[in-house]
């Protein structure tokens, strides 16, 4: 142990290599700006909202956009702009929380499977193979149905459905990093496995995981909107872009604005995360191009 504490093993720092490149990537900048815009809308929703998102009024049912109702009103007279702002909270939270769940389960499993190999790897990999065979939206629908419809359960279902990708990605990265000299060195001086994983392996497998996480946030936001659209996510009267679209589809001809804005919001925020993910990939992994 004393020897171990004297020797400092220097792992190459790869994490921030691409930061300046990222700043020079136009797509990533636009994507980042879109994401920040929606985060600001979501955080300051109570301040920015012009109306109470829950207040219905029979005098203002299905009104087109106007100075009073910026984006019009819905089928029971609620202000769509205000509901969109609060809906941004549900969407962004769903994106971030489900990816956090997927990371919390997937990253450790991938690290363990890749690092220890053998039986542990075999067992984890077989289960992941099985889960990967079920298309993630169908898995999420089945899970959300099993758990019961609510925003929390939808996030859990999406998170679990997204986990296999992270396990497989992390495992593959660990296998590549494991044979590097600095890991061999750390093992040779007898450092405990936990420390080797946390200090020498984890930081060097993170880049592709971060890229994947960013892109998965985009997928998760669409998945949450899809589940809410099917009635398996956020429950009424709480606003969610997906459930707003679900009611809006019944008023396509009478009130097209009810569909246009929530769907446009989903499109924009997903586009933002996809642009950011692409930019991150270019910046962090130049070998791909």
């Amino acid at each position, binding site marked *: 142990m004393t020897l171990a504490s004297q020797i400092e093993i220097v792992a190459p720092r790869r994490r921030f290599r691409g930061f300046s490149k990222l700043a020079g990537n136009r797509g990533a900048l636009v994507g980042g700006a879109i994401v920040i815009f929606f985060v600001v809308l979501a955080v300051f929703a109570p301040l920015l909202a012009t109306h109470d998102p829950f207040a219905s009024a029979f005098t203002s049912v299905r009104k087109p956009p106007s100075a009073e109702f910026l984006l019009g009103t819905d089928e029971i007279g609620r202000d769509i702009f205000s509901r969109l702002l609060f809906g941004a909270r549900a969407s962004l939270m769903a994106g971030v929380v489900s990816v956090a769940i997927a990371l919390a389960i997937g990253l450790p499993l991938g690290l363990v499977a890749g690092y220890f190999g053998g039986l542990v790897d075999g067992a984890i990999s077989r289960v992941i193979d*099985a889960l990967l065979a079920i298309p993630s939206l169908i898995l999420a*629908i*089945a899970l959300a149905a099993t758990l019961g419809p609510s925003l929390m359960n939808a996030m859990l279902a999406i998170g679990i459905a997204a986990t296999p990708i992270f396990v497989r990605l992390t495992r593959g990265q660990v296998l590549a990093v494991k044979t590097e000299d600095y890991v061999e060195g750390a093992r040779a001086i007898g450092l405990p496995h936990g420390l080797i994983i946390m200090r020498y392996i984890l930081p060097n497998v993170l880049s592709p995981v971060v890229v994947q996480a960013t892109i998965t946030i985009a997928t998760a936001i669409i998945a949450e*909107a899809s589940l809410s659209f099917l009635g398996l996510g956020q429950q009424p009267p709480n606003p969610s872009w997906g459930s707003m679209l679900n009611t809006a589809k019944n008023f396509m001809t009478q009130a097209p604005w009810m569909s246009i804005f929530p769907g446009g919001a*989903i499109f924009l925020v997903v586009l933002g995360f996809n642009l950011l993910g692409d930019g991150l990939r270019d910046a962090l992994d130049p070998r791909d191009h």
Partner: protein
Amino acid sequence: MTGGGFRCRPSLSKKGPDAVLKLIVRRILLALPTLIILSMIIFGLQRLLPGDPIQTMMAEESDPQVVEFLREKYRLNDPIPLQYLAWVGNVLQGDFGSSLRTGLPVTQMILQKLPITVQLASMAMIMALLIGIPAGVIAAVRKNTMVDYAANAVALSGMSVPNFWLGIILIMVFAVSWKILPASGYVPITLDFWLSIKSMLMPGFVLSTAVAAYLMRHTRSAMLSVLSSDYIRTARAKGLLSNAVIIRHALRNALMPIVTLSTLLFGDLLAGAVLTEQIFVIPGFGKLIVDAVFTRDYAVVQGVVLFTAIGFIAMNILADVLYIVINPRLRHPQ
């Protein structure tokens, strides 16, 4: 299926099919543990379901004798491992159980709905190939021009647009405002071929966007790597016309990974059909699972999920085989 790949390469025909057969057997054997674990997961999911399925089925009326009869009939009184084995035994014989709601065999329900979704997914795949591959080729050839940037922007939008929203917008434009396409519904292809195709145009396109975008990106990068290779430079040096080089030499090689990718993406299309069918009121596979979820018809949910997963694994194996068939170099490990 394998015949086409060998016709022009007689020297390989002796060894070729053998290698392909071996590969198929090996891949199926490798898939077995996956399938077993998969069946356990899907079966276990049912155990997580809160509430008694019989109670749900019976609603308020619950004669204890009838409940007991049904519990016996659906083997709900047996220990869980026994229930699992009985279920797997039936599945192996093609019996996915029967719907708790309609009493119909799940296999029959799936087989009834499947052709509809396969038609939708095929339409989407054809559209995706027709859009994605030419767009990818053009983007690669005109790399770093406005055309390339535009193609990339459209692809990124295709990946970001939610299917159900695009569906609503298209219905508003083409069915409500312009009245040139039917808004929803499904016409069997045997009943009226053209009307069937016409009613599938919008849903097919909506379903195709993400796959088209994916194909475009992959075609572009595959073309870029092929275009920078030596034999393309040689072909150009020989004085071959640029278009001929692109199509006869570059595209042919770039297409190999695209063919396998398309096979895998077809599975995605079947899954993505869930939302598209919901919007366009198409009575397919996707609508079956959504309806089953809402009526807590667990046998149907279980059957659909298992069926999809088996289909997905089969597609994976098919992709591997296709890869070998169209790329003879891989048949002889060095």
